[in-house]
């Protein structure tokens, strides 16, 4: 397999283009997707035209609802919701329609669609343009939830999401869009949903990190390895279904667990993983499970304050030390 190099934005663009070439029932629907906010979908209009790259009115419910109806009748739509914050405007078609359709109809209608949406703080966009809502969707039976942290993962997972017969919520991160990385070539390279990736092997502490927290966790792992502390960084990549096996195996090995997400901690991913481990692997634990994430607050416009809120390397470091009992 040959390797290229690209950003996550580029990887997503490629995944969409390749799947559109492969399957003509794949279309992209959203507000100004032809222009491409953050440049992610830019240029697709040239190859696929406006029948398949569909700009819409500002009508999030109709955008997602249209995708649900189209998916029920033979299409595989990809929807873009410009900011995760606007998912508040289309929760019904996601939660009560897409997620439940297969179940409610006793399997008569499946809903193969993807909702892509960028989240995360760090660009002074203020309280209504910086949120991350992964855990809401994790708690909705019928949905799958994906959140990649590298170009290769983004591409491979998005392709799987498009091919999946269920609604997949695909959560991107604005700040990660332009981080580069290796990207395998070839239109058929996919990554199965539901498989975690061990981004760094280690033996002392397991750090389960997601999205923007992954590179931060890896940097801390590097830093601490100089101190002789060996950290295993696991990126679940798919948040639902969660690869509990990989996580439990790692914790059995290390006996210590830190979780790291950008979203608000309350009832978040870290809570779910902590509950999982404290139910199923409590015997292996040698210390407290420590969660890193946004405390119970909003993100301020003021950038110093915003950055003081966003969880960072320092927070992971402190958490690792705490998990090791050296507070």
């Amino acid at each position, binding site marked *: 397999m040959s390797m290229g190099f690209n950003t996550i934005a580029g990887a997503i663009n490629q995944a969409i283009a390749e799947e559109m070439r492969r399957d003509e029932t794949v279309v992209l629907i959203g507000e100004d997707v032809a222009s491409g906010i953050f440049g992610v979908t830019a240029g697709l209009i040239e190859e696929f035209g406006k029948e398949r790259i569909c700009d819409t009115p500002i009508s999030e419910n109709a955008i997602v609802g249209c995708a649900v109806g*189209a998916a029920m009748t033979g299409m595989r739509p990809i929807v873009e919701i410009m900011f995760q914050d606007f998912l508040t405007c289309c929760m019904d078609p996601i939660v009560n329609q897409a997620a439940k359709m297969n179940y409610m109809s*006793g399997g008569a209608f499946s809903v193969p669609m993807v909702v892509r949406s960028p989240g995360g703080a760090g660009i002074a966009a203020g309280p209504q343009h910086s949120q991350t809502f992964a855990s809401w969707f994790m708690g909705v039976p019928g949905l799958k939830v994906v959140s990649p942290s590298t170009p290769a993962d983004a591409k491979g997972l998005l392709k799987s999401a498009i091919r999946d017969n269920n609604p997949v919520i695909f959560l991107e991160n604005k700040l990660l869009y332009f981080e580069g990385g290796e990207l395998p070539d070839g239109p058929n390279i996919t990554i199965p949903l539901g498989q975690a990736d061990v981004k760094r092997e280690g033996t002392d502490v397991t750090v389960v990190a997601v999205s923007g927290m992954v590179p931060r966790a890896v940097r801390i792992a590097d830093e601490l390895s100089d101190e002789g502390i060996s950290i295993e960084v696991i990126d679940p990549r798919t948040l639902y279904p969660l690869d509990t096996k990989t996580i439990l195996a790692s914790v059995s090995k290390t006996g210590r667990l830190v979780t790291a997400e950008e979203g608000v901690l309350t009832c978040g991913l870290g809570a779910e993983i902590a509950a999982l481990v404290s139910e199923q692997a409590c015997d292996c634990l040698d210390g407290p499970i420590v969660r890193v994430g946004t405390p119970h607050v909003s993100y301020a416009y003021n950038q110093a304050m915003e950055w003081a809120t966003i969880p960072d390397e320092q927070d992971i470091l402190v958490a690792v030390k705490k998990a090791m009992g050296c507070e």
Partner: protein
Amino acid sequence: MKQDFKLTKKKLLGKVPALKLLKRMLLIRRLEETLGKLFADSEVKGFVHLSIGQEAVPVGICANLGDDDYITSTHRGHGHLIGKGGDPKRTMAELFGKIEGYCKGRGGSMHVADFELGVLGANGIVGAGTLLAVGSGFSAKYLKNDRVTACFFGDGASNQGMFHEAANLAAVWRLPVIFVCENNGWAEFSPQSSHQAIKNVADRAAAYGMPGVTIDGDDIEAVHAAAADVVDWVRDGRGPVLLECMTHRWQGHYAGDPQPYRDQDELAAVTQHCPIERFKKMLIKRKTINSDEFEAVATEVELEINEAVEFGRQGTDPDPRDFMSYIYAN
């Protein structure tokens, strides 16, 4: 251009098509009367919304649709399903919560759906069906498969933001969608005057640049004729149309609703509008059919519904522990 939509004259129907319409309406009527009883007897559970009195709308509309065409529906969805040709047996089985039911007992009254007939499901969320209709309209246009979607919704639903977004999007994209408003003057316990400051929901069509017309929804021939015009227009690629059918809700909002909020005289008068009685009388007067022919159909229907009830009652209960299946598609 978009505004030059006009209804043509009502066509008088011959015996065969007339009896077909009568039969469908009777099927809905008897099915729902039976459901009302089964609910009162606690054989059927949950929320059951009856469309008794409103049968002409789905029957008149769907008579102009093929099996390939789509419909989206509401919480009051049995009539739409049966109107589209749905199977009373599988409907009953669903209401009894059985495996043989349309949703294998998972959905119940508010979710009956038929993949083969393009029935995209009844819906427990008021207004959500209009969103799905945009989707089936989109796929039909994109796949060029010539299918149209009839989207049923109520006067109450027309106040939902989802309806607004759906209508606007269907209009900008000129999708083959017919927005069929069943205006029965009520949203649960609230009369229309308390939920919107307009008389005709069809007046909303202009807000989207689509044609809108209001007809007597209890006159099956009027509905049938208007639907023919609208289906032609829409299938022609001329964009969506809003067709408002004025009708009457005879029963409570849900089975078991004692309707204390309703004026008793108004309520007593609703049966005057009976779409079945009106059509039958007219056909007999016009000598299109005679009353024996009507009775024969009524008897057929009676039998079919009785059979459906037995089919439902005798159906297989799903294994309660099987609650994981169908959450995800393979």
